[in-house]
């Protein structure tokens, strides 16, 4: 059976919500919020359908779509080399990411109840952002990928700049510039491949580039490094991370849920699909450096997180540190490592979303995220404190939760290829525990510092937290849940890496 336009439907399903919102008057707040949340549901259902269909063994080719989009040059005079198609496709990894995106979008939409003003504009931009994210993971050729990649930037810019905290404009601009540079480099690479090879179709490029004759060794290496920089900004790889800290601190939590949950992961996605996918040999020769970068990320982020006084900053640096695990996994260049990296992508997505949702909840009540001003939350809001603890334990890699699986596999991989480095990296595991406990305990434990009378989580607030925790634990307890879908993706990658 085939699925005509399923991917297109998924990608553009938020448009429906946008249209409805466009015609709802500003003043109907509750209605707007409701629509905003509901608008994310169709995509969720469709992606789940896609996932199930895929798990039931539907062929990936059944999902692919292709429509001619534009020709730069006249196809009658020149051959159709200079033509770009609108083509969508999906593989195990991207399906996984699509599901994750849909899920987190819905949760973030629910989490948006804490947004204070102008819900209409907020939700319209929110849904636009969602389209962009879907598109990135469903894109079948690089130009489409790039287009959606850029489309994510704009709504995010406005969402940060309008609904963020004190320093929001600065954060928004630096977000834009950094990612602009990243995408600029990406565009150069893409157009170079397009101009020199004549296609940007991802599968086609994979097969063509595997041919040694195409492009010289050094060119490939340059392209790969360019790609690593381009996606390194997104991931972010040290030292390209300072924008990301600002965004994490200034952006509204519901957006950070998506940002940390999905947008950062686009970097990893691109690195895996294009970095390794297109230039496996070159990637192998860089593997050591990637792994070293990973360890640096891991430790650097951890050490900085250790002395932050603002919980949001702690989480921001912990994100940097956790992205180090992804690099470590990729640097291992074996199936365990790559799988670990992918798991980390998913798991950190969920954990970051959870933690920032909790931040949003207690910021709502305490109007601060400074560690010094918080404390003893376990008495005032035991449930929130409990979830916070769960989140912290999850992201410090407690077995039984998704974080551990990712960490375990990444290190398993790295220990095979470069044990010494891996051993150094293991320091990071300890540090992670140290800084997370330091931060979380000083918020939840100890004598209560703040005097405001606060209520614990509302039921509506519990929904996202519970769902996220369930997923985190589910993956942690039975990782094959998602590992099974990834096997062929990883096989192709590892085969590309030559065993």
């Amino acid at each position: 059976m085939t699925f005509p336009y399923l991917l297109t439907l998924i990608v553009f399903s938020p448009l429906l919500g946008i249209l409805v919102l466009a015609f709802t008057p500003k003043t109907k707040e509750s209605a707007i919020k409701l629509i905003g949340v509901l608008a994310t549901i169709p995509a969720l259902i469709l992606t789940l359908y896609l996932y199930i269909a895929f798990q039931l063994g539907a062929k990936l080719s059944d999902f692919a779509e292709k429509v001619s989009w534009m020709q730069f040059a006249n196809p009658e005079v020149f051959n159709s080399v200079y033509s770009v198609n609108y083509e969508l496709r999906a593989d195990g990894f991207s399906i996984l990411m699509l599901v994750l995106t849909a899920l987190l979008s819905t949760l973030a939409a629910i989490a948006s109840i804490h947004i204070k003003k102008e819900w209409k504009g907020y939700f319209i931009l929110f849904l636009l952002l969602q389209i962009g994210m879907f598109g990135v993971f469903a894109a079948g050729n690089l130009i489409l990928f790039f287009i959606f990649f850029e489309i994510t930037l704009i709504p995010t810019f406005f969402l940060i700049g309008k609904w963020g905290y004190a320093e929001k404009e600065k954060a928004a601009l630096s977000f834009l510039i950094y990612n602009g540079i990243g995408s600029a480099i990406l565009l150069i690479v893409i157009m170079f491949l397009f101009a020199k090879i004549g296609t940007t179709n991802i599968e086609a490029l994979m097969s063509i580039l595997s041919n040694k004759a195409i492009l010289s060794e050094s060119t490939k290496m340059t392209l790969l490094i360019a790609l690593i920089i381009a996606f390194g900004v997104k991931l972010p790889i040290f030292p390209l991370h300072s924008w990301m800290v600002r965004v994490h601190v200034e952006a509204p939590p519901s957006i950070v849920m998506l940002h940390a949950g999905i947008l950062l992961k686009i970097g990893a996605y691109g690195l895996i699909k294009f970095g390794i996918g297109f230039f496996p040999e070159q990637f192998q020769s860089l593997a050591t450096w990637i792994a070293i970068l990973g360890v640096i990320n891991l430790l650097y982020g951890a050490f900085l997180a250790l002395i932050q006084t603002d919980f949001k900053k702690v989480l921001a640096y912990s994100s940097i540190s956790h992205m180090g695990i992804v690099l470590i996994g990729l640097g291992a260049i074996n199936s365990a490592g790559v799988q670990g990296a992918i798991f980390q992508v998913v798991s950190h997505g969920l954990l970051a979303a959870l933690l920032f949702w909790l931040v949003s909840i207690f910021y709502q009540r305490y109007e601060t995220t400074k560690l010094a001003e918080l404390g003893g939350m376990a008495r005032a809001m035991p449930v929130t404190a409990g979830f916070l603890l769960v989140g912290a334990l999850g992201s410090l890699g407690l077995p039984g939760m998704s974080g551990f699986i990712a960490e375990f596999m990444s290190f398993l991989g790295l220990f095979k290829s470069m044990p010494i480095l891996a051993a150094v990296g293991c320091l990071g595991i300890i540090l992670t525990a140290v800084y997370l406990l330091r931060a979380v305990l000083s918020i939840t434990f100890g004598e209560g510092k703040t005097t405001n009378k606060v209520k614990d989580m509302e039921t509506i607030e519990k929904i996202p937290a519970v769902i996220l925790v369930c997923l985190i634990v589910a993956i942690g307890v039975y990782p094959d849940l998602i590992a099974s879908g990834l096997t062929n993706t990883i096989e192709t990658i590892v085969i590309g890496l030559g065993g």
Partner: protein
Amino acid sequence: MMEFAWIIPLFPLLSFLLLIVYGKKWGSAAPYIGMLLTFASFIVSLLVLVARFENPTYKAEATWLTIGDATLTAGFEVNQLNALMLVIVSLVSFLVHMYSKGYMQGDERISVFYSYLGLFTFAMLGLVLSPNLLQTYIFWELVGVGSFLLIGFYFYKEEAKAAAKKAFIMTRIGDVALFIGMILLFWQVGSFEYDEIFASVSAGTISSEMITLTAILIFIGAVGKSGQFPLHSWLPDAMEGPTPVSALIHAATMVAAGVYLVATMFPVFAASEAALMTVAIVGAFTAIFAASIGLVQKDIKRVLAYSTVSQLGFMMLALGSAGYVAGVFHLTTHAFFKALLFLAAGSVIHAVHTQDIEKMGGLWKKLRLTGPLFLIGTLAISGVPLLSGFFSKDEILVATWVHGHTILFLLAIIAAFMTAFYMFRLFFLVFGGEARGDTNHVKESPNVMTVPMWVLAFLAIFAGYINTPWFGSFLGDWLTDGNAALGHGHIEGPIWIMGLATAVSLLGIALAWLIYSRKSLSRDWLSSRAPYAYQLVNKKYYIDEFYHFTVVKAASILSRVARLFEVIIVEGLIKLITAFITGLSKLGSRMQDGQVQTYGTVAFLGLAVLVIVLALTGGYL
């Protein structure tokens, strides 16, 4: 029966889930749920143990995670060792559940307490059942969380917070070592399964260096959990948790997990003399080191804590001296009498609301039940003949001697002497003499607390008889049955060792009696002799201070360096670039001076430059 062993951990897990969700609603009903479910798992584990007597080892597993071509499995296994452990754990856990009903009476978060207990018990039982290293590691960590949560149960106390954090992080250090060792083994063996590991070890496919390395790494993990030197200092602080917790986690079960791990991995250790030696030395040193600190502690629970550390040292020593049986045997007996001691101490604290032994005294008359129970425990741990501790400790000494560690043997003897001394010091200070604090409102604990103690007391006395020089070493034979790598069920040692052991323990008791009960020797008789030594011991050899000034400081310095780097290099670079661009644009807009002739000039100059270049290069550029 054994194929249902997997159900054992599920009872406590169920209790955890139920109580965490509905605990608030059910309130006072929570303890009964906890007790019921743990009792159920105790019964099942008992049945499993019985079943294990006639049936061979049972193992079941299913695919858990596929990595490339390797598939990791999860499952459970029932062999002699963990069948035994199952019973110990579930029993002690059940008793503690019961005891806590009385001890935690009136605490509004009692349901949370029970749910945590459930979580811990689940993890501990899971750990015991694990058939492979990875699964062990997983539960190993979960056990740590359980302990972390329970230590931090009184979250509003800064000490509790600190202790919980310390416990988690220090054990984590060990865990990472275990993590590394485990992964290294995996790449050597290609599997986490115990039996496959042992197989390839005995097959000699692994280089001896690798064996030693991994064994030691795994041992470091054990060191962390079992509070061996140098990772011991979290255990005494862990006494911030409620006393029943100390009894369950920090005496009977979790801290023993380290020993259990070494015991399970014994074939690997046995394959490397160096590894065994390390274990033995660390064990012996810890034994005497902790005992010496125990001599001067003023907090009833801390004395017990240090004695725990020291006893665990004994077990490690045993394992390190190839005394597999001795180790496990002491593990068993220790579980009972130490749990007993803690519960008794708990009931004392419950009665007098202080932990400072200086403020106690003369409680023998007040606490008619607790006193004798405590005495039993004390006798047992001091190795007084005919009680359980006597037999197991004797086994250890024999093993050490036979294995030829003369020095370690001496250390062990001294440690044993100290044990006897400080335990009775404790006993006399708490129960003997006259009351130093006000004791008029002191009353005996309710039955729900005393009954478990009676059970434990019974076991503390008679558990030793399952493995004695006289009535046959039933336990040993059973444990080592069909597994040559574990050594003999019973090691014949010279008879004088038993005499010596008895002598030193009696000597210790006598000394304690002289100083603290009969007061014929002044209390600072010894400390005044060597004030510095006393100071040193009293300050626990400044271990914590040492860590604070090395590890912690180093970390914070590194963090500061990182921050400097962040501010100066990372941010600075960006500032530089932006400054450059803005400077350029400033220059550009200044050139735009509004003079039309300037514009014309610029255009002309542009043309001129182009033409000149053309002229010079002759058209080629």
